[in-house]
């Protein structure tokens, strides 16, 4: 990461959101949101239910089209790009309501994650051996490595659907990592996990960050957020109400009001 491009990206932020607006009919889910995610950070996006966190993630990953504003990733404007092109640029994600390829094996799920980093097309598929076989082997090996990384190698030949909830989340993370994303969006990765699973997740998130992957995560588990985040953005009613380090945000009166739904006395 020493290219001039990367250095510039670190300075201006890997992901720059400016004046982002997303409406659903008469409801403005995200309203003039500004946010910067610096390269290398674990950045948490928090806020009460319905504050526009998942909508923001869906706009970044191209599943929703913004009604205004801009989202720039490493200098590339994302507006108007389809989801698959955004994934190819280096943004991976997981989903709040897990979206695995349920009937396929765990290994195949992660191999599919390699899609944007591999090339074999319809024509290549017809000729076994040579480049096709090499790529297939490399894809399989890389998927196995990633499954070992999330500690799921033993489950590789089971169907994804048959795994326990916590493990399914880890498969999703491994699938996203397979594309070698520079920015990984995690939508409530700890939802539905027991304390032991959450602890393991914290360790995993730190190891992912050590790989040089920037993380933007939505999470309701404040313990996790305060433990892993370098920076936190707080949303309420689709608007940015605070941004800063964990301690700074925790002290912010607006944040306390938004979370507790009234004045400080209410606490």
């Amino acid at each position, binding site marked *: 990461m020493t290219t001039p491009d990367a250095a510039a990206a670190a300075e201006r932020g890997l992901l720059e959101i400016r004046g982002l607006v997303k409406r659903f009919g008469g409801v403005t889910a995200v309203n003039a949101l500004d946010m910067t995610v610096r390269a290398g950070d674990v950045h948490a996006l928090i806020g009460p239910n319905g504050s526009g966190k998942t909508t923001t993630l869906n706009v970044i*990953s*191209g*599943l929703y089209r913004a009604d205004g504003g801009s989202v720039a990733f490493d200098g590339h404007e994302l507006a108007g790009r*389809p*989801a*698959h*092109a955004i*994934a*190819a640029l280096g943004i*991976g*994600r997981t*989903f709040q309501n897990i*979206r*695995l*390829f*349920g*009937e*396929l094996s765990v290994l*195949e799920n992660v*191999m*599919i*994650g*390699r*899609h*944007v980093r*591999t*090339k*074999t*097309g*319809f024509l*290549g*598929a*017809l000729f*076994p051996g040579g480049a*096709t076989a090499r*790529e*297939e082997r490399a*894809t399989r090996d890389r998927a196995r490595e990633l499954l070992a990384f999330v500690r799921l190698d033993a489950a590789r030949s089971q169907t994804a659907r048959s795994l326990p909830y916590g493990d399914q989340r880890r498969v999703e993370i491994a*699938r*996203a990592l397979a*594309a070698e994303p520079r920015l990984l969006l995690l939508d409530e990765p700890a939802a539905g996990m027991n304390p032991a699973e959450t602890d393991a997740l914290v360790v995993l998130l730190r190891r992912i960050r050590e790989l040089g992957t920037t993380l933007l995560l939505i999470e309701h588990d404040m313990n996790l957020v305060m433990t892993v985040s370098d920076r936190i953005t707080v949303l309420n009613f689709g608007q940015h109400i605070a941004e800063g380090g964990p301690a700074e945000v925790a002290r912010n009166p607006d944040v306390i009001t938004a979370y507790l739904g009234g004045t400080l006395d209410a606490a």
Partner: protein
Amino acid sequence: MNRRVLALIVLIVAVALIPAVVHSDYILTLCVTAGIYAIVVMGLGILLGFTGQMSLAQAAFFGIGAYTSGWLTTHLGWPVWPAMACAMAMSALVALAVGYPCLRLSGHYLALATIGFGIIAQLVLINWKDVTNGSDGMTGIPAPVIGPWTFEHYNSYFYIVLVAVLACAYVAWRIKTTRVGRALEAIRENEIAARATGIDATRYKIIAFVFAGAYAGLAGSLLAHTTKFLSPDSYSFDQSVVFLVMLIVGGSSSIGGAILGAVLLEFLPEVLRPLKSSYIMVYGAAVVVMIIFMPRGLVGLFESLRARWRRGAPPPLGAAAAAEAEAA
């Protein structure tokens, strides 16, 4: 793995011996037709089984292939082989033109759009008399020739169809087991996740539709050069439904299932023939029972039977639950 390859070779050799053993022209006709249908159904398998996109227009692409091949050989006097390649290409091209707008639709809307296209295609075959000769049908289509051999008779044509079925199965298998097939299955399993993983879902769906069209086009051409006569009523909506049922009965995401379904449903009416006029009722009931009790088709049934066989005798229900609890 080696045992499976060996079993496959034994099976292919056994099938190849059929014309040597069976001398009934009628049975051989059924074999040839079943093989041709198997190709159409494998194409539908790539689209519906692998990719999860519904089409009820396979009969239309089958017809386009048949008439393209028929017209090129009778009106332009082309030899059969280039006509066959053109038939395949023509069906693929039409599939591209139809698939491009239609595959932005999904589920029921896609199914409806393909039904509409299928009906239009059949009306064109009936009414475009200059080319298709309308309801009177197209006659005098030649048999294929390789060097000194003319494949006039069913016992020789059988081998052309066998080679085509094997080639189509090979292509489908290669697609299924490499990057492209995984992308198709990802779209079937969860399209949003597939797109977020970097798969251009629309493009892959269109390509799968084109493959389905090309398979049907090849099959149509194979039919034209064996029956030597084409009539538009063979390419109806009903026929598309039959292809769909063949795929589902066989096992939709399995290549062997597609072939098995086509062969089984082609021969089933013959088995039921002694029932005379009530046969269609029994046939319908048999299909319904198969779909209800074998949601993953015959191949799914075989797989679960084999899994049970491997575990030994089926354990009593209580024991199975206990074993599962222990494993968890």
